[in-house]
């Protein structure tokens, strides 16, 4: 069953098929993103409400060279 989303909060989502382990995202938003033992992103997908975290998450998504990370907008399932 799909996890119910907080319609007022954004969340990060990783496309594992695109992630190539560049690691820039973890530098931009360490409070939500870490790297595993092979260098690939481990992304926390819980809702982001704190404005500074949100800004860093947005920068992390924009910075990914592989286009693997998106910040899903509230109450939507697509888009950056």
């Amino acid at each position, binding site marked *: 069953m799909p996890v119910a989303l907080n319609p007022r909060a954004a969340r990060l989502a990783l496309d*594992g098929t695109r992630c190539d382990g560049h690691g820039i995202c973890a530098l931009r938003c360490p409070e939500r993103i870490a790297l595993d033992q092979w260098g*690939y992103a481990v992304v926390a997908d819980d809702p982001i409400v704190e404005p500074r975290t949100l800004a860093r998450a947005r920068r992390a998504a924009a910075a990914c060279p592989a286009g693997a990370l998106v910040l899903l907008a509230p109450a939507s399932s*697509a888009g950056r």
Partner: protein
Amino acid sequence: MRAGALLGDERAAPVGGVALLGDEGARLLAGPSADAGAESFAAQRARLGPLVLGTPEDTRSLIGASGLLGRGGAEFPTALKLAAAAASGALVVVNASEGEPASRKDELLCRFRPHLVLDGACVAARAVSGARAVVYVHRRRGGAALGAALAERTEDGGVALGLHEPAERYIAGESSAVADALAGGAGLPRRRSFASARARATVVINAETAAHLALLARGGAAWFRAAGSDAAPGSTLVTLAGGFARAGSVVELLAPVALGRLAAATGSLGAPEAVLVGGYAGTWVPGAAAAGLSIGRGGAVPLGCGVLAPLEGASCGVAETARLVRYLARESSGQCGPCLHGLAELAARFDALALGTARRRDVERTRALAASLRGRGGCGHPTGVAQLAESALEVFADEVHRHSAGAACAAKAVGLPLPREEQPCPWR
């Protein structure tokens, strides 16, 4: 509508709620026995009556009222899935690729009840206001029978039906991979939230789910809910693999049944040390608990793709699991680092366990590795393998302990079927 053919099963319920192909009282498996081959269009219409499709809204309401959960593994409510696709006039894809090595339920439906599968495709298409449906099926695993069945049909309900041959790999049956293949892609998993517009215009349902739709459209929601349980209505098919006496046979459960009773009803030879439930990326259940385990949709242990595989008497759970992990690791689509690297390392660690070259701390690292793979990657594959690995480490803890003390595996027989083993297993 031949209501009697559907209602009759309530008056002649199969023994213990377990039915084989052709049994009176079965639902999906009702009708002629295997000797008769595929049930023809004419014979099916004579037995069940015509397929009458309502409006898309009525069709979706009916499916919602039935409470049907998908039979492909995830048990997602079919009504929700079809409602999400309804606005786009999506292409319905019936997934009969059945890449799970030991599973035979979808193939059996395609070979012997092809018109249930095709009728179900039409019902699903009507539910999404679509005009096309495709069955994704290997020619030699029921596709040929479906092709012959297509040629027989004299009514199409306004739905154009076709077939599509999948690639010969385990991951080809993952639902986003199916959608990708139908959209002209490579047939590898794609993240749904990033899916291309073309891939989004498909909705994938399992072949057994489609067959249930075919009967539901005739019998109605109340009839449908008279089988199964309140939480997971309807009958369900399981494939008995490995140690069960009639390995490879498919049975229909009209209600949840204790595994021990299922084994007795189908002629199993005794008490297995453990049973793998839900497919190879499933859950090991210890033998002591297995006999009383309730088998059915929505049960304590997820039924997944419906495979029940007891551990053969002469086999070792660690060695068997190592063999399965190696197979599943090889079948990774290789698109995601954690899956490609993580499963390869997990396979190497299980090989070491089976060979007796791993030590106690390696066991803990193996457990931690498996846990770290949950939820990673672009599809559910690594999570499934993690589930297999973690349950093995728990259920076969004694064997794991012996192996980690330096004892190589003493197993002589290897039981669970795998296709085309290209690499020799190090412990054989």
